[in-house]
């Protein structure tokens, strides 16, 4: 006896059926954290052509390979100098606890890189711990004030975010505790909406003037970054250059968020790989490579990803989700009193498990990373978090230099597109590099 043959529909698979039934039952779209879960062409689809007869490699462990990175050299009298081209992406106090922000700053300072504030303003913990701090100017302007503008090391005007280009932010009420509410000038417990447009300017011509205002306020000292979510990247980067940006940050669709509609996360924006190539093309078109620096973000995880991003033309990367994972996001355990404590039951109460969790929006993070809950946030000891993140950033940087040396580069910024090939036709077309084993670049 055999049972009936079960045949799952491709169009209406179990996950689609679950989505429709959930929508029918609740009348609400799903909101969640982190980034796109669908597979899109990404840096895994590229490979390096290391040195052989036609290239001469550097000794992998001993020969010097520079990683120093300068950002903001176009107009600012005090550009940013980083020891490594790997920065910590903007993540808000509100989405993250003050303890986590402190951990980010401590780790970044130890390895010589920058952190970025995020929506909701600058915390004392972050400013005190982060040697190089980029202060975001967002549409909401929550907590945005001239004292913090003056004590920041750079200003980043956020036009959009890879997880939700064109959409504003949100922070659900359970994370709006008294301190978050005070910093954002909001009542406690409200579901906070961040506007999708800046309040005092409305287009690229206005952006020129806005950037000049910020330069005047800071006496032309601080670099001005402009961050865009990856959509019409070629045009957006050109407009940002024309507007006077020192640094352009492009955030691909794999970029994370603390809370956004799933439909946004999975269906809006373009992959980081495609966005990066368009951004570099735009800078090349304007002959601005090296004058305006490019930071790419959105799903960067490893030294290989960083090396590929630099080879494609980025000056630096920004990492958000990888940083959170390094702190313990989606880990089975958290560290308390030097011991690992299981968080399995807490994941289960959220209806999830370590490795699958995207419940940042609930504020009930089982490992104390994306929470404002007084008890849960204690699960992340800033010292432990800083140590783990320092280790992660060091590892990523070591991987980066290992690849660079293998490609014969004495400086990671010497990695070039010619060092890359693609595994798939799609990645070859998006990245603008040849399909492996061929000289064919689709569309060229």
């Amino acid at each position, binding site marked *: 006896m055999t049972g009936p043959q079960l045949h799952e529909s491709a169009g209406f698979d179990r996950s689609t059926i679950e989505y429709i039934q959930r929508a029918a*039952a*609740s*009348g*609400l779209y799903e*909101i969640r954290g982190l980034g796109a879960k669908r597979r899109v062409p990404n840096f895994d689809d590229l490979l390096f052509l290391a040195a052989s007869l036609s290239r001469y490699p550097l000794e992998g462990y001993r020969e010097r390979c520079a990683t120093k990175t300068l950002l903001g050299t176009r107009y600012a009298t005090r550009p940013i100098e980083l020891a490594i081209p790997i920065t910590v992406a903007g993540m808000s106090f509100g989405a993250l606890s003050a303890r986590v922000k402190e951990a980010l700053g401590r780790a970044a300072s130890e390895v010589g890189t920058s952190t970025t504030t995020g929506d909701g303003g600058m915390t004392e913990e972050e400013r005190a711990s982060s040697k190089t701090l980029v202060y975001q100017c967002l549409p*909401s*302007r929550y907590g*945005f*004030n*001239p*004292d913090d*503008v*003056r004590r920041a090391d750079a200003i980043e005007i956020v036009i959009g975010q890879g997880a939700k280009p064109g959409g504003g932010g*949100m922070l*659900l*009420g*359970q994370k709006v505790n008294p301190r978050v509410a005070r910093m*954002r*000038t*909001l*009542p406690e417990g*409200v*579901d906070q*909406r961040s*506007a999708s447009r800046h*309040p*005092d*300017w409305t287009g690229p011509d*206005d952006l020129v*003037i*806005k950037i*000049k*205002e910020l330069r*005047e*306020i*800071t*006496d*032309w000292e601080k670099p001005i970054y402009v961050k865009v979510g990856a959509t019409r990247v070629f045009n957006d980067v050109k407009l940002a250059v024309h507007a006077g940006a020192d640094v352009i940050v492009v955030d691909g669709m794999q970029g994370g968020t603390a809370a956004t509609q799933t439909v946004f996360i999975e269906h809006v924006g373009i992959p980081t790989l495609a966005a990066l190539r368009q951004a570099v093309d735009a800078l090349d078109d304007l002959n601005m490579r090296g004058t305006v620096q490019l930071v790419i973000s959105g799903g960067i995880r490893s030294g290989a990803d960083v090396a590929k991003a630099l080879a494609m033309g980025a000056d630096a990367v920004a990492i958000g989700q990888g940083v959170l994972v390094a702190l313990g996001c989606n880990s089975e355990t958290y560290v308390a009193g030097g011991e690992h404590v299981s968080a399995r039951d807490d994941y289960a109460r959220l209806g999830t498990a370590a490795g699958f969790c995207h419940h940042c*929006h609930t504020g009930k993070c089982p490992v104390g990373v994306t929470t404002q809950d007084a008890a849960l946030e204690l699960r992340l000891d800033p010292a432990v978090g800083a140590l783990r993140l320092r280790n992660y950033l060091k590892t990523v940087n070591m991987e980066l230099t290992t690849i660079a040396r293998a490609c014969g580069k004495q400086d990671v910024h010497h990695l070039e597109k010619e060092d890359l090939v693609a595994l798939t036709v799609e990645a070859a077309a998006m990245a603008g590099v040849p399909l492996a084993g061929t000289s064919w670049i689709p569309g060229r």
Partner: protein
Amino acid sequence: MANLRPLVIAREFDLARDTLRELNSFLHRRAAVEGVSQIHVKNPDGAHSIACGLNADLDVQIHGHVGYYVAGMNQHASVTVHGNAGPGAAENMMSGRVHVTGFASTAAGASAHGGLLVIDGDASLRCGISLKGADIVVGGGVGSFSAFMAQAGRIVICGDAEDALGDSLYEAVIYVRGKVRSLGADARFEAMTDTDRAAVKSLLAAAGFDHDPAQFQRVASAKSLYHWHADADQEY
């Protein structure tokens, strides 16, 4: 001795001759150090970002029309524009006073946290957008979407308001004397209390107007947009 008035040391900048950078650099770094408390700016000719980022008790008198972001992010200073102002006048002001004797363009007082913005004439679209605690008094009317997503603070409108007044308001309160073409999402008229009338009286006096507070209506948030109901069980 007690009757002696503090000495006012004045300095004049002529933007037909001096650069904006020279002016703002002086205001940021040298005015307070040199004891200059009053600065006159001639021939602004619509320049942007005049007197932005001030952080001292200065009296800046601008004689003519200005462009974008006059007195942006102001702290402590008093800035008077004897003319019209472009977009974003006193944007993100923290404290002090900004007075526009003519009209103000879009987004006047946007995201301002504190201080008082007075506009003798009309204010255009999105006046007081994302307001975070400052007070704004407009002698004339305001354009559409004024007080959009305003979080805290008070806006007194002596004239009329165009469409969508107070759309998506949080805790800011609007007092309007004239007609309101339409209210925005979640905004509603509420009864004026003695506290409201006292507030309007005080703000009008501070701005130099003498209307009867009884002529004003109060607009505030109905607070129905405060929650997405993401945790609500709406199954049916």
